[in-house]
């Protein structure tokens, strides 16, 4: 029965409707596989066996009464462990929150619960979502199922590994600077970073709120669209969330993409990108032309500044967002301290790992004194300039296309002692849509030595449908 684990959501939905198997059956098979494989892959931090089976039973009962709720009813999924689920640990892969249990559900979790989806557990990540290889997790690294010596990407490496290793049907991740798209690319699956504000952030432990989005990792573009449709909605609990015109998602997928103008970015071509990725990129361009799209070229002159801009803004916001972890009310608290100051310092020193500390210190620094004007405020101005350049690009293009990363998954430990420069190149490719809030999707494009390479499409705000259409055609054409 384990072959059913590779099925798409719509295939499961059909099978469940036909009573070919029940949600309890399906959930059981996933749980079994998790039990067998997770100790090696380390995709999950927490497996919610009992509550998953209970949800599956409820789904089966609904179905038996003819009250099934739609495509996601009974479908098992996983959520990154920086998304709050009532009664489950919310560790953010940090020692700081090693034993912290959330008393409430994130809004996306509620939406999926309402849709009948079955939560299998919480997936591994880089500590507080800061990293590119899920190596900074307090619970050990998540491995790439395609080559366990390699990273699964990050920071949503656990979610990507879980989908790629058939340990769930789809997974939620979070994307601040590429954390959904890059692991999806490294694991050869689909990763969507939606339009900023389309999915509520309520319940996502903030890293950099002006950049954070919850994202979707799935096997197929169709699955991604199904999950997106169930979760995109205005949430009164998130002031930055917006109404998403879900009616725009109606209609057949994929719709005809003939005549769509898809732009390659001149400055991306000038970057130091691996030969394999370069070939993959042009393969994708060729495929698009064959599908009847028009491939053009645009310029985003500030591309090279996007990584520094992203790093400054995200670190500044993180320094503030993570200040709440002080040992006073919950989480890690150091013992035997003499003063308040000492308690703060020791608790935070022990609770946070190096990468998190590095970013918080940098962030606090650039919000202080003269650095604020020189670095932080300069970054805000650059962000505005990049957005203006992208707006210009979208005046002639319907979509932008660029590689998701400069190469395939790197070896674990390869960048261990490297500072942020090591990842700058990769993050550079992902930060354009992060800084602008525009939706982007990564899909597998080709493989080099059995390792996948991803291509990324960036669309206009709230035009996820176009992304899905083009990505679905492209996925078909490239396979």
């Amino acid at each position, binding site marked *: 029965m384990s072959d059913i684990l590779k099925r798409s959501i719509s295939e499961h939905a059909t099978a469940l409707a036909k009573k070919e198997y029940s949600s309890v059956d399906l959930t059981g098979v996933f749980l079994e596989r998790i039990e067998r494989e997770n100790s090696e892959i380390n995709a999950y931090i927490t497996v919610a066996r009992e509550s998953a089976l209970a949800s599956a039973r409820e789904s089966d009962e609904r179905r038996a009464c003819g009250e099934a709720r739609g495509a996601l009813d009974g479908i098992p999924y996983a959520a990154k462990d920086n998304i709050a689920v009532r009664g489950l640990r*919310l560790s953010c892969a940090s020692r700081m929150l090693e034993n912290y249990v*959330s008393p409430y559900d994130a809004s996306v979790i509620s939406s999926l619960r309402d849709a009948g989806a079955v939560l299998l557990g919480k997936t591994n990540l880089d500590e507080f979502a800061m990293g590119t290889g899920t190596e900074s997790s307090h619970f050990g690294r998540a491995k790439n199922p395609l080559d366990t010596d390699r990273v699964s990407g990050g920071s949503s490496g656990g979610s990507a590994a879980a989908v790629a290793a058939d340990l769930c049907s789809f997974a939620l991740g979070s994307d601040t600077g590429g954390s959904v798209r890059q692991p999806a690319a490294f694991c050869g699956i689909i990763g969507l970073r939606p339009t900023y504000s389309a999915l509520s952030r309520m319940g996502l432990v903030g890293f950099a709120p002006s950049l954070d989005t919850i994202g979707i990792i799935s096997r197929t573009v169709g699955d991604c669209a199904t999950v997106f449709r169930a979760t995109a909605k205005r949430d009164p*609990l998130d*002031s930055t969330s917006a109404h998403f015109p879900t009616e725009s998602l109606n209609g057949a997928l994929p719709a005809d993409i003939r005549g769509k103008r898809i732009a390659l970015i001149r400055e991306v071509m000038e970057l130091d990108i691996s030969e394999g990725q370069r070939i993959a990129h042009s393969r994708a361009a060729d495929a698009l032309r064959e599908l009847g799209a028009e491939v053009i070229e645009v310029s985003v002159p500030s591309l090279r500044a996007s990584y520094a801009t992203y790093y400054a803004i995200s670190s500044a*916001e993180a*320094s503030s967002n993570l200040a709440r972890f002080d040992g006073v009310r919950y989480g890690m608290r150091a013992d035997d301290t003499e003063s308040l100051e000492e308690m703060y310092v020791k608790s935070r020193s022990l609770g946070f790992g190096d990468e998190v500390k590095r970013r918080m210190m940098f962030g606090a620094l650039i919000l202080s004194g003269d650095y604020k004007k020189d670095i932080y405020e300069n970054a805000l101005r650059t962000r505005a300039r990049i957005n203006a350049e992208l707006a210009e690009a979208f005046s002639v293009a319907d979509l932008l296309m660029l590689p998701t990363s400069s190469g395939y998954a790197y070896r674990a430990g390869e960048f261990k002692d490297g500072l942020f420069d090591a990842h700058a190149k990769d993050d550079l490719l992902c930060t354009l849509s992060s800084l602008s809030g525009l939706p982007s999707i990564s899909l597998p494009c080709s493989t080099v030595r059995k390792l996948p390479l991803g291509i990324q499409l960036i669309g206009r705000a709230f035009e996820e449908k176009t992304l899905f259409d083009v990505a679905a055609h492209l996925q078909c054409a490239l396979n």
Partner: protein
Amino acid sequence: MKNYEMTVGLEVHAELSTKTKIFCSCPTEFGAPPNSQICPICMGLPGTLPVLNRRAVEFAIKAGLATNCKIAHRAGIDRKNYFYPDLPKGYQISQYARPICYDGYIEFDGESGRERVELERIHIEEDAGKLIHDGTERTLVDFNRCGRPLIEIVSRPQIYSSESARAYLKKLRTLLLAVGVSDCKMNEGSLRCDVNISVRRAGEEKLGERTEIKNLNSFAFVAKAIENEFSRQCEMLERGERIVRQTLRFNASSGKCEVMRSKESATDYRYFPEPDLADILIDDADIERIRDGIPMLPDQRRERYIKDLALADADAAILSSDLALSDYFDRAASVTEHKRTVANMLISEGLRLSGGEDFFCQIAPEKFGMLCDMFGEDRINSSSAKKLLARMWSDPELDPEATAESESLWQINDRDRLLGLALSAIEQNPKAVEDYRRGKSFALKSIIGKAMGASGGRANPKILEEIILEKIK
């Protein structure tokens, strides 16, 4: 100290009386058991987000309109970062560069007569929790107050005496109460004041280095702290010492200011725009709608009392300075022609009987008006009126007419009865009559007093005096 002058600026925090907190829907009532008014949002639990209470914005705009401020069409929200156990997120959501209200002013009767102090800004922010030291080694935190909405009203340094500082605060409090945005109870901490004070030699242009006295919670403490800090700085300057910028705390029991921290350790709050909240957009229609809901303010009331009711300026000032008093006056005066009597009775008797900071009276204003009618129409005299009022004060259910009847308080206006009273008083006090005739005019008072006493205090004093004078001339 005569050679020096002080310059004071005040930062006042007022807790807004919205039903719910500024970023979540927890209740805000005072005095609930510790940590009973909290939720994941105001506790800043991982993943939670703030949602701005529009009411708090509306209240801030009201406060701004009452203090002649300009209202921003687009205001920003910022984070103020610092660590403290009563601050669950490690930052306070506040406003830095773009407050809701700016460039206002308040006029009040200060030490040097009518004064005007400009306001730099009014902004909204969230309150912090409260540390409780229970006498043991540990410290507890009550987060009920955490996330209650505050406005901070920042004056320019344009106050030059402790008396004016006090008058400014009183006026500000009256204005906030008038527009109904805060209950301004200093003893419950819903009005708190920080004082910035600097001292310079008289006649000097440049301001001296300033110190800040934090968290004063009574008008008296504000005045005391200012006086105390003024003399400390004067003495230092006199000794040739330099004032250093410091944050002080007023110790109520010693009456002195103590150093909390010096400038060297001043925190950099690392303000930056709050990414979890959008800018606050306010259009002219919002402002006009809010302006329409603002009742008559103290200065307008005072003017009306003088112009329309011909009250004395001093009386009008007293009545308008206390809203409860002013409202009560308006209601009582609306049922009687004898409006000045209402004003006099309230000011001379009502305020004394009420006591306390704000006027409070349980007698229905209509009954109060009725009482003033009885006096104004000469049906009771002033001593009966006072007596009746005191009786009604302790038993607000009493009807003035019925009580006057049952306690025989009606004034004796009958000339024959008064003549009888006068004649017997004259007869029984020959010495006083003699004294009066010898030119000791005060003796008249004693004769009137005797006759009044014999009437049980009910004689019409004017007619009585007339008759007695006539008889003893």
